[in-house]
């Protein structure tokens, strides 16, 4: 497997009033294409911040984020938006679907950024909804669906533009166990069958078990499993 991401000496901090707060410092790691990583750690450890940096929705204080030769930390906002649209699918804890749009329209949203024809977009939407098992719910609004179903629509929205990587922020955090397992199985399927690289932030150890590998982030650094056991 080839490297998809290369993070080098990555630091991120912010200021609150006069106080400078460091989230992590000098973080170096690589993520390979086709991997399924679960990033775990206590609240405030920087999991979501790391995910934001990988997705190009936040910028590091220093260091570099390289994705297949593209220094995304150096891209302008406009180029970064284009890069996100082409390369990354996001899945959020609270689904973040547009309440005014039905399932199919929500899934179609990222395709408005492409040059695909209306017909081609419809075909893609149908395929994406079929993959997540919601082909029969295309016309339903988010309000008419359960949390699990909404999250599956969100997954369909994340994969419809065929991105290389899926960034999932607590994708099962708002779901019951059964729905959570269904979502995680879907993610596993996307990783194994469609080769999507998945980076998932989670608090849930049983969710992390679906990943190929687990990374524990604590106090701004990755902690080895043995160290963690102590």
């Amino acid at each position, binding site marked *: 497997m080839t490297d998809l991401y290369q993070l080098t000496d990555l630091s991120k901090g912010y200021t609150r009033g006069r106080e400078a707060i460091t989230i992590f410092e000098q973080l170096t790691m690589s993520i390979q294409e086709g991997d399924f990583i679960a990033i775990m750690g206590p609240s405030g450890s920087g999991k979501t911040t790391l995910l934001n940096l990988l997705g190009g929705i*936040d910028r590091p204080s220093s260091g570099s984020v390289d994705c297949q030769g593209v220094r995304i930390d150096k891209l302008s906002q406009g180029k970064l938006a284009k890069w996100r649209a082409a390369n990354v699918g*996001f899945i959020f804890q609270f689904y973040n679907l547009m309440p005014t749009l039905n399932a199919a329209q929500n899934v179609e949203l*990222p395709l*408005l950024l492409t040059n695909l024809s209306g017909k081609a977009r419809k075909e893609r939407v149908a395929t994406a909804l079929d993959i997540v098992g919601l082909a029969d719910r295309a016309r339903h609004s988010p309000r008419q669906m359960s949390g699990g179903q909404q999250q599956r629509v969100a997954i369909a929205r994340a994969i419809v533009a065929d991105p290389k990587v899926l960034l999932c922020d607590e994708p099962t955090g708002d779901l019951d166990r059964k729905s959570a397992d269904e979502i995680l199985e879907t993610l596993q399927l996307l990783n194994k069958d469609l080769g999507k690289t998945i980076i998932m932030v989670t608090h849930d150890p049983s969710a992390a078990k679906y990943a190929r590998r687990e990374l524990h982030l604590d106090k701004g650094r990755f902690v080895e499993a043995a160290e963690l056991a102590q």
Partner: protein
Amino acid sequence: MNDFTLIRKNLFRKKMRAILLIFSIMIAFLIFGALGAFYSVWTSGSSSAADNRLVTVNRINFTVSMPFAYWGRVEGVEGVTNVSHASWFGGYYQEPANFVQTFAVDPESWLAVYSELTMPDEQRAAFFNTRDCLLVGADLATQYGWSVGDRIPLLSNIWQKQDGTSSWDFEVCAVFDAEDDTLPTNYAMFHYEYYNEALAFNRDNIGWMVLTTIDAAQNDRIMREIDSLFANSPAETETSTEAAFNEAFAAQFGNIALILLFVVGAAFMTILMIVGTTMVMAINERTKEIGVMKTLGFPAPRIFRMVLIESILLSLVGGLLGLGLATLAVAGSAAAMAAFLPGLSMPPLVLSIGLALAIGLGFITGIIPAINAQRVTIVTALGKL
């Protein structure tokens, strides 16, 4: 689906709010459209006034009369080509609600001064030669179904005859039209002599004089000369151009322009604040969704555009509804108000200004929410660090 679908869905995501906003905007533009149409009619007199036509009235007020003898003296002023006079009769037909604008004039000089009034030659001759002839404007004739040969009694609340009656009998012997369709033809005229001889009071007086000059460039001198003729007399005069006189006449209804400005301005400012605040709140409610759209790759300028178009669309829907309703209201009331406001209709200029105002209102109320939506960072929008 396209951007417009998103804009439309966002606009009506809270239907009651959208309907109330559109209703508020509609009311503002209804007021604007209706007042604009009225204002346009009120001021149309000045635009149709001839450059070389002057009006002389009593200096106290144009409703105060002046001696008939003034007419002959003004004729002698150098540079005056024609001069005529008129006296307000008013009057109504059958019942007070049927108001008829009527003037007592000197027929031949009047039609010489107002050469744009047209009628068949035999009717013109009949008007000159028939003492009780009523020369009726085409619109007025249509309004009451009068035609040449009809005998019409007009009643006056002011002018009593020497026999103690207030009913004045006329024969419609001519119907006039105007060369220009925009000129009013909703009034009637009759012989001053017929009126003056029968009057119980205020005899040998006239209401005002209208005259034409040889050259508009000489207007100032002629105006000064005429007024100096009657200086220090019991009935001093004030001469002005016909355009200025018409504007002064319109001003008796109040300063229409100022009223229009205040009413529409107040309505617009109120609506501007309501719509502006509501748009800011509506976009704030959607901050997270804007963050999600940016996360998906929607560029900030595109989001800016969508929010601004949403605001302009809201304003346009309300504005067009208001202007449409105003057009209907004006069309509906035109017939009933024909006696006072002939040619009342919705001018295209008012519609164009209204349309521009609607777009402007949408732009002003949408620009701040659009800038906010453009500037908000994804991390902030999603409520994360």
